[in-house]
């Protein structure tokens, strides 16, 4: 296994390990299909939606493996309708939140902005 392969493997088994910092979320695709994956959800403070100018919503930075089974692959992601379901606040009910932006990605991980 090359270092390249090891890093990609670690994206699933280490960085998105539900026994550590990741949690189970549901990925809903625009076409209606869904699957459960592991993700690191960073619950940021509220922020102004720049495209709205005035509305304030919670912002979430979500890290997932770039993988079409255990994460979300960069070529399947559609920021025109894909959503993730997770608790907005730890302990509260799960809610669907739109993936509004692909903040960054590489062959191992995607960093998504949800609102």
């Amino acid at each position, binding site marked *: 296994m090359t270092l390249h392969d090891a890093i990609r493997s670690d994206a699933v088994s280490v960085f998105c390990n539900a026994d550590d910092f990741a949690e189970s979320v549901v990925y809903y695709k625009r076409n209606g299909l869904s699957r459960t994956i592991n993700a690191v959800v960073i619950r940021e403070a509220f922020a102004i939606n720049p495209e709205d100018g005035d509305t304030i*919503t919670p912002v979430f930075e979500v890290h997932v493996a770039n993988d079409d089974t255990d994460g979300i692959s960069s070529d399947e992601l559609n920021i025109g309708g894909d959503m993730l379901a997770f608790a907005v606040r730890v302990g509260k009910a799960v809610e669907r939140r739109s993936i509004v932006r692909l903040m960054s990605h590489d062959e191992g991980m995607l960093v998504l902005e949800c609102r």
Partner: protein
Amino acid sequence: MPLAIVDQIHDAIVSRLEAMVNDDDYEIGIIEVVVPTRIGEFTPRDRQIVIVQGDDERVAEMDIPGNPPGVARKQTWNIRCHLMPDENSGEDAVNQAAADILKCLTTPNSTWHNWGGLAINTELGRIEYVSFDGGPDGVNVPIHVLYRVSEYSPFVSRI
């Protein structure tokens, strides 16, 4: 407890725009109308209308004398439509969204501007097209509603 006149106008605006939801008369296909709370509690979606109350302005030249006098105000509402189409579609619906919102707001044509007798007049503001880097696109259609209330009570209209 009665609602303030500005709240009644707000409710009339929301109600009129909610008529767009799942109505085939409007090409754009609005899925929901949202009025955000203090802590958001909504997620941006394609074909979603978000109504945000903007600035208020005194219009002293439209005051009327009396005891109590009638005080005129101009209240802005920003009617924003989120557009997040399939990123593979190449669709650009900002103009359609603006046109459909204007069509809905001005229905019924002869009396749309007074919101059921609550306002003196309504002006359509400058349409703003929003295109953000990689995020939701959209359009904002502001409206400015001129209304008048009793100086002692914002719950009493003085049209």
